[in-house]
């Protein structure tokens, strides 16, 4: 074996707007480096890019499975985790409030990834249909809820967002 410890390096990233420097290990994924830096909301559900629990919003790339991205490729990147949904005063995002209201979180392990999928959807589609929400969640596995209350919560949150057509036009 070669001495891999020698190959560690560091990257500069902005996590939810805060500058951080992460020492990374050879071959480490973004998921692993984020978790090692204490960003435990980034969950490891499979380590193979299937479950969506490690979703982050990665700069221009948008919604990304952080377990598939080498940390070394993220120098200078902007990363948003679920903590980034809170406003500056620490208030919950409408998505989070509606998840609570609808009983859409059971064990919660998939929830950060699902909330980020939903957030990503609402960036482009302010008034998603049920099918569009389901499509947005197609890369996430939730083993507890059966998704129904999550879809309802996401649509309810969309209704509340200021740019939502429904909010602007009422029920018409």
């Amino acid at each position, binding site marked *: 074996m070669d001495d891999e410890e020698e190959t560690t390096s560091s990257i500069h990233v902005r996590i939810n707007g805060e500058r951080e420097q992460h020492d990374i290990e050879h071959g480490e994924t973004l998921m692993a480096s984020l978790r090692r830096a204490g960003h435990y909301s980034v*969950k490891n559900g499979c380590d193979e890019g299937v479950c969506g629990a490690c979703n982050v919003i990665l700069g221009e790339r948008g919604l990304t499975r952080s377990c598939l991205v080498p940390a070394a490729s993220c120098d200078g990147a902007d990363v948003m985790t679920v903590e980034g949904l809170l406003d500056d005063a620490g208030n919950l995002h409408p998505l989070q409030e509606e998840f609570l209201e609808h009983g859409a979180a059971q064990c919660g392990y998939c929830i950060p990834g699902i909330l980020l999928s939903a957030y990503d959807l609402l960036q482009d589609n302010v008034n998603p249909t049920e099918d569009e929400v389901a499509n947005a969640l197609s890369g996430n596995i939730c083993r507890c809820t059966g998704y129904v209350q999550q879809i309802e919560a996401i649509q309810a949150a969309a209704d509340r967002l200021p740019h939502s057509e429904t909010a602007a036009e009422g029920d018409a």
Partner: protein
Amino acid sequence: MSQYEGEPESADETVAENDAADSNVTVRESVEKVDGWGLVTGNARYTDDVPTDDALAGRVLRSPHAHARVRSIDTEAAEAIEGVTAVITHEDVSEQRFTRTGFPHPAPAPFDERVFNETVRHVGEPVAAVAATTVDAVERALEAIEVDYKVLDHVLDPEAAMGSDTPTLHPEEYENQQENADPEHNVVCETRHEEGDIEAGFEAADEIVEGEYKTQIVQQLPMEMNTAIAWIDDRQRLVLRTTTQVPHICRAKIARAFDIDRTDVQVIKPRVGGGFGVRQDTVPIQYIAAALALETGEKVRLRNERKEDLHVSQTRHSQTIQIKTGVREDGTIMVMHVDITSNTGAYGCHGFAVLENAAHEPLSVYPCENRLFTGRAVYTNVTPGGAMRGYGAVQGTFALESHVDKVATEIGMDPVEFRRRNAIEEGEASFEPASSEAMDQLQSVGVEECLERACESIGWSDGPDQPANDRYRCGYGTALSMAKSGVPNSEFSRCNVTLETDGTLTVRVGVGDTGQGSETVMGQIAAEVFGLDINSVHVKADDTDATPWDNGAYASSTTYVSGNATEKAARDLAEKVRDLAADWYDVDPEAVELADGEVAPPRGESMTLSEFAEEAFAGIRGPKRRLTGSGQHYTPLSPKPFAAQIAAVEVDTETGEFEVTNFVNAVDCGQALNPANVRGQIIGGAIMGLGQTVSEAIEFDEDGQPELRGLRDYEVIHATDLPEIDTELVETHEPTGPFGAKSVGEVTTLGPPAAVANAIEDAVGVRITDLPITSAKIWDALQGGR
């Protein structure tokens, strides 16, 4: 448990009925989960969400063979690698055999395993484990361990395993053999339960209908992998922070396996990412993490990879179920004989109890006079079967509810009408295992109303609209199901409630919340007794050091058993509050009202609970008082929740492709204490059941290797696969439940396989009798019929 403030346990086991606040401040309201904020902000901390820079990395060396004896293990080279702190094998652990099965000791399971077994009996079984200062050192050490295996013949099929020419998996004698065990022929247990007169039943029948049904192996697949962090604390006690749904049982099993005092083991159960049964058992990595911590004296982190978890975690048993039914032309079931062969895999674990449940719960729905259940659980060289949501009744319900439709068809009766005529009614008894001590007469049975509501919802009597193109055919299918509210005379829960100086409550109860909302429901129950808001209650449940014994989360026991204990503890505290207030005001305690968070004596001014607590603690009207209440619950009762589920399908007759378009769940769970969370259990359970119905499967190749490269090969239901779902709450009132509640965690997982199979039969006239139901099987069946 002497760290609690407070007074001796109340001996009073009765639950007062009349002093609840009528306004239902929290109970029957969809209050937000008490842990909800952490769940939606990412602040919830699961087992692995703590810094472990100070921990040794642990890994397990696993058997590549389905059946082999370890002749020798050479660990010398591995131990010599820099950074390696410990290498342990079967030579380093007790020879005492036990069972991992998560019931109170002695579980209904053979003591047929050790932490490491000299004979390995399935691919992936632990052979050795390493702890080292770096992941790299651990991996190199695993490669450096030399194992000399004597590969043995293996057997994967349970029928073959019972034959005379096949290997015996457990030739050594073991303790705690189950009913009619025959280890030489790989039989873990053989059971027989007869009521009435079977022969007479068949003679009196107009038609006799037989069928055979098969179910596949599936897995619980909670999203958090099984993980354990173990260390020795500053009092030289062993601490496990781990993914469990039964912290107190886990503590007891670890202590027993390593011969440590119970008081010298602590289990911390932080947030847990799902359970669904797999965390009822103390799984190998939990024992191994403990062994490595004890060996090294250091903190050790051990976490299965997803693929590893898929390969080695206990599964849902596959079963072959034969049913023979005698029926009269008028639709009366005269006799039922159910015979089950259950594949328990390499170890006995839940073999016996799952087998018993597989027949008894489904058969309970049809209380005919003559019933016979025969069955056996069999060892084979695959991953051990364990506990999984539904616990045998998923298999049994698929078979029985498919068969009930087949019988109805034979006598030309509508399957719903046939079920109406035969289904259990209030006051009738459930079919309980001979070993059960249950008092089996049921006081709340809403199954018939569930069926009516489900039929109304889907429009059963009109039948489905058929597409104009007759290539596509639609069908409806239904299934009834029954589950339980705990294992009778086995569950035990104790709860302590403390009145804090400001009138808030701390509830200490050892429930195993893995997301289903048990902590929330316990909080609601305690709050309700005082008419307090849920935010005035803190539920502490995540640490065996801080909570009294509770069996934890399995058998749909928590709301009923732990909920009753919590209600009693809160009422015990309420009684003390009334006694003290009566003392202050010189009135009869009975006359002191306690509602809406206020203490109201018959004369004088009422005060808030907060004011009351402050005065009591300050000693303004007498000696300083600190008030706590306690309660415990242990019962021969296990009230049954019921469900009627209906699937609507559309089948492409030219390809066999099909879609489940609608799915209705009508559920009687007694009173729904938190309707939003109840709905979540109903839908989540149904979707898990639907996954087993249409796609999930773990298969093994001829060498016993699991045929899964990872999660990508295990097909669960995604959001885009959902049918239109309707959920109907049919609320009965269970007089023995906390605020009228029964359970709801498992009952809707049972019906989907049969409901879908029946709907496909309704649509295209072919019956799929082995799970999962695939387009290929439907197409084959359609070809057979042509």
